[in-house]
């Protein structure tokens, strides 16, 4: 089983005729994702690769195909509108890959999506994959394999590195989710941890964090209070220099500098096994799933 996406996922691709959109559309179709439509305003009525229908709006695509998930590959200045459009069209899961979305845009998008009852993943994320069933985003399919570990991460290539090591060690995954590293994103660690806890096939969870913010600390508190399944963690950025901070507001608002040491401490306090190196995630997980 899995979280968020599976065989029932019917995907519409926003920005399907762009450079990134068309490349990854082919990859997702090849992987076996049920891609039902593309959207590019002004190109409605055309076909992608001769077969997949393209619509002018997400609403048209949803009405014609019953799409329940959308993935967004539009340029940063248009990404906010694409997310709003998908939420308005009734899409239940919106995955925004686009990097560089202004944070003030995300401040408006977040409450709107929430009101519409949709789940947003991203922006600035690699998306998610349920091995053998569905891939939404850009995570390379061949490095994943089905199995008992749920994985959630703030990063892209570091996720690939760890998934690859897991797969090479014979440890498969239920679902791998990249939530993205932007200051305001739709889905956080806790959302994914709660979903993995509820998923009967997930036996253990790997959580990859990094410096900045307090998401990892809050996730650690959640693990301690609500999770029965074992969780293993890694924090990137232990050697990162302290930010060239301007003003005082950043330190005041969170009461935290968001350092790796703080986050590792929070993990340890919550009983989360902390990997010192990315490869140590494999060994820590093996103990829990054998």
């Amino acid at each position: 089983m899995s979280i968020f996406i599976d065989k029932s996922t019917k995907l519409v691709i926003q920005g399907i005729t762009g450079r990134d959109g068309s490349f990854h559309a082919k990859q997702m179709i090849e992987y076996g994702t049920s891609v039902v439509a593309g959207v590019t305003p002004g190109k409605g009525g055309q076909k992608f690769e001769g077969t997949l229908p393209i619509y002018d709006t997400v609403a048209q695509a949803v009405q014609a195909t019953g799409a329940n998930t959308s993935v967004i590959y539009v340029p940063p200045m248009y990404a906010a509108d694409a997310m709003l459009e998908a939420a308005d069209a009734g899409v239940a899961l919106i995955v925004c890959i686009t990097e560089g979305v202004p944070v003030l845009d995300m401040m408006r998008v977040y409450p709107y999506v929430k009101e519409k009852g949709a789940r947003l993943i991203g922006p600035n994320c690699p998306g998610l994959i349920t091995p053998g069933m569905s891939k939404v985003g850009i995570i390379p399919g061949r490095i994943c394999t089905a199995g008992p570990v749920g994985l959630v991460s703030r990063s892209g290539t570091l996720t690939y590195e760890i998934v690859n090591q897991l797969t090479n060690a014979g440890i498969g995954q239920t679902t791998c989710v990249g939530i993205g590293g932007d200051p305001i994103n739709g889905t956080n660690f806790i959302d994914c941890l709660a979903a993995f806890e509820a998923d009967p096939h997930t036996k253990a969870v790997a959580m990859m964090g990094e410096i900045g913010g307090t998401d990892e600390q809050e996730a650690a508190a959640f693990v301690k209070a609500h999770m029965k399944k074992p969780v293993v963690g890694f924090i990137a950025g232990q050697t990162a220099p302290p930010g060239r901070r301007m003003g005082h507001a950043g330190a005041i608002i969170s009461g935290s500098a968001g350092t790796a040491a703080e986050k590792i401490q929070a993990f340890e306090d919550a009983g989360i096994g902390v990997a010192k190196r990315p490869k140590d995630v494999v060994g820590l997980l093996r103990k829990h799933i054998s």
Partner: protein
Amino acid sequence: MNIHEYQAKEIFRKAGIPIPPGDVAHTPAEAEALARKFGGTVVIKAQVHTGGRGKAGGVKLAKNPAEAKELASRILGMTIKDLVVQTVLVTPAAEIATEAYAGIIVDRASKRAVFMVSPAGGIDIEEVAEKTPDKIMRLPVDPRYGLLEFQALQMGLFLYKDAKQARAAAKILKQLYAAFTASGASLAEINPLVTTPAGEVVALDAKMVVDDNELDRLPEIAGLRDESAEAPSEVMARKANLTFIKLDGNVGCVVNGAGLAMATMDLVKYYGGEPANFLDIGGSSNPEKVVNALKIITSDPSVKAILFNIFGGITRTDDVANGIVTATKQNPLKVPIVIRLTGTNEEIAVKILSENGFTAMTDMDEAVQKAVQLATGGKAA
């Protein structure tokens, strides 16, 4: 993107916030002329992208033009947290009755812009926040409605007992919010917000950090960037669309993706080395990016070994291999290089590299250990 105090003040002034006059000087003579123009005592303030200027000696009072010249000559050229002061702001010294703090920042936790105000402003505001948190009022703003009149007044009344001053502060906070959103800022701050003996509320300092993602649609704000206030290697990296931060070690790192780049630096340290930099070549790399990355890394004389760590997803490892070959043909390397790559088009990449005399590794830990060994002359484990 950071902007200077004098630039932030100009933005605040345009939004209607009362700010005393001031102008910038690049030489002691210019500072002297400005002091003469303003008359009386002036403040000379270093314009650098860091806090703690006052404590570092970068803010001084000058009683007359001669003293202004003398102090400007001391502040110009001084180094504050690795940044050389090239510009000073000269402004008439204000008479201060009280000092308050007002700031607005994007808050990750509430996913909103949050105001923070305190009647106990000044240079020790962080200590105030820590020791007496009840002296700070926080107010999240709903982006759909903006800062409402009554909310602004609530904060004004938290700052000042005097109703007239509270109203003046409320007006300033609304103007600050307008400047914050119109400039695509992630932080805007007034510290101190002062009252004068005559009872007026005035902003004496201004800080603003702009969200880099806004710069494409705000060309006027983008034009405020002062490249002379940034490290030359970082300017070069930005122009090549690379993210680069210089550090103190000797293992030069070239990685794709920020998370993997940080994990690579951590691993360098784990195996007894010190990373010379953070460098992220980003997602869709082309050979040109790799050429630029190598130029930046090799221009740092402290780099004793270069480490490539590439996990090809969107990034094609053959692009990276071609970049390495091109760059090293143009400028033969003077230090050893360790290349680890895996993922998309790995076989082609390995072939390109071996045909040109390079060895490619596939394991991240082994590659990092080897790079550390080479950088330290074989001393580290």
